[in-house]
């Protein structure tokens, strides 16, 4: 006896332009279909049962990764929502300014899945264990949400309302993610993840983006995933670091604060104390590597 996973009945439309997609998305109970590598498994499990899918895979205008602004920095990295994980992993310009993206994309799913899964899809899926949500939160990125009346900009730190829930409303589409690129050198970033096996969700993971002025931390961004950190951010640890010297002692102290302020849930991936231990260790490692990269 075979037990086949079959999605519920669903209608399918292929968007021919962003405007067309927005008009289709104004109908109730409609979901955007991009890579489909989260949505289709959820549909097979009947965790998602939309009335209609709007396939945006043909919208080349949403598929790009580019740097706007001076080559010396001071601009923004613009990532189209339809850019694939593999594109971000392969992007030299993204890796140059934010090695955290390459760190993270190396451990998102597996190489075949990364060819299809999209950056925008990952953010919109809003899985509480999603890697890029923590990365974009650490980098203080902004989501560009397109709607019938134009674009609205939402900081990624305000993008998620909760697990599997975002601020995107009916008739809207995530178009782009913008990451501010500092005007001068001295910024470093890193991502550290522990998963049980290749391609699995994080047991816990931490991302850090540090802006240094000599040895002083001007700004710190710390993203956490899979441990129920509010908006994927370790805000108390960031506050602690701001203005302090970039020392091992301060990194360890900040990591401890991050571990205290998140809310990991015990599950088959581990008990709460283990996950807090991971948060402390991974946050410290990410801060160390980010600082080393900032000064090289």
């Amino acid at each position, binding site marked *: 006896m075979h037990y086949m996973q079959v999605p519920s009945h669903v209608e399918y439309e292929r968007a021919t332009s962003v405007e067309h997609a927005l008009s289709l998305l104004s109908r109730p109970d409609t979901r955007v279909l991009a890579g489909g590598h989260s949505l289709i498994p959820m549909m097979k499990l009947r965790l998602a049962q939309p009335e209609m899918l709007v396939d945006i895979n043909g919208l080349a205008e949403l598929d790009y990764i580019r740097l706007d602004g001076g080559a010396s920095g001071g601009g923004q990295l613009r990532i189209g929502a339809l850019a694939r994980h593999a594109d971000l992993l392969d992007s030299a310009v993204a890796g140059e300014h934010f090695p955290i993206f390459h760190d993270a994309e190396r451990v998102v799913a*597996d190489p075949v899945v990364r060819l299809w899964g999209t950056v925008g899809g990952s953010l919109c899926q809003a899985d509480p264990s999603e890697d890029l949500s923590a990365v974009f939160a650490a980098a203080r990125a902004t989501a560009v949400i397109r709607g019938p009346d134009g674009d609205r900009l939402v900081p990624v730190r305000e993008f998620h309302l909760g697990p599997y829930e975002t601020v995107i409303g009916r008739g809207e589409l995530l178009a782009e993610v913008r990451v501010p690129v500092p005007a001068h050198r001295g910024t470093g970033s890193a991502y550290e993840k522990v998963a049980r096996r290749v391609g699995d969700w994080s047991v816990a993971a931490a991302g850090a983006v540090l802006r240094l002025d000599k040895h002083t931390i001007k700004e710190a961004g710390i993203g956490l995933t899979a441990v129920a950190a509010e908006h994927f951010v370790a805000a108390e640890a960031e506050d602690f670091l701001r203005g302090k010297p970039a020392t091992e002692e301060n990194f360890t102290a900040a990591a401890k604060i991050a571990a205290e302020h998140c809310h990991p849930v015990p599950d088959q991936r581990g008990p709460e104390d283990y996950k807090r231990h991971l948060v402390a260790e991974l946050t410290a490692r990410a801060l160390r590597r980010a600082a080393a990269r900032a000064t090289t």
Partner: protein
Amino acid sequence: MTMRVAVTVNGTEYARDVEPRLLLIHFLRDELGLTGSHWGCDTSNCGSCVVWLDAKPVKACTVLAAMADGRSVRTVEDLERDGRLDPVQEGFVECHGLQCGFCTPGMMMTARWLLDRNPDPSEAEIREAISGQICRCTGYENIVRSVRWAAKKFRDTS
């Protein structure tokens, strides 16, 4: 409700009226009779169903046939050309790259794609490329050897 899906599979165009919820793997196996691609875990984990969609490997249990409408698919049936096995297939024969054979079609399609991009992959690169695919016989060592054999044959003859 059904929709017309037209897909070029291994160079031949097929059109079928199917439900939009039909997965590509079932379209290939049940509608077209191309049973070389295997339906395995059904959860995007095992990779036995890997085919190429527009020249990129994809787990065919995780895309809808509708998404392939107007596009091209390549399956394991297309590796052999004019009665000649692809070097990847030869490698799996030469190096005992399969035991039960269930994961083999997906492994070979990913390996072919890897070699097209990287004719001389290291062992680590091969292991990375197939890291999203599972050999339940745990015969990874020989799969890696098979791909390396194919890479050498490919280099020697091209």
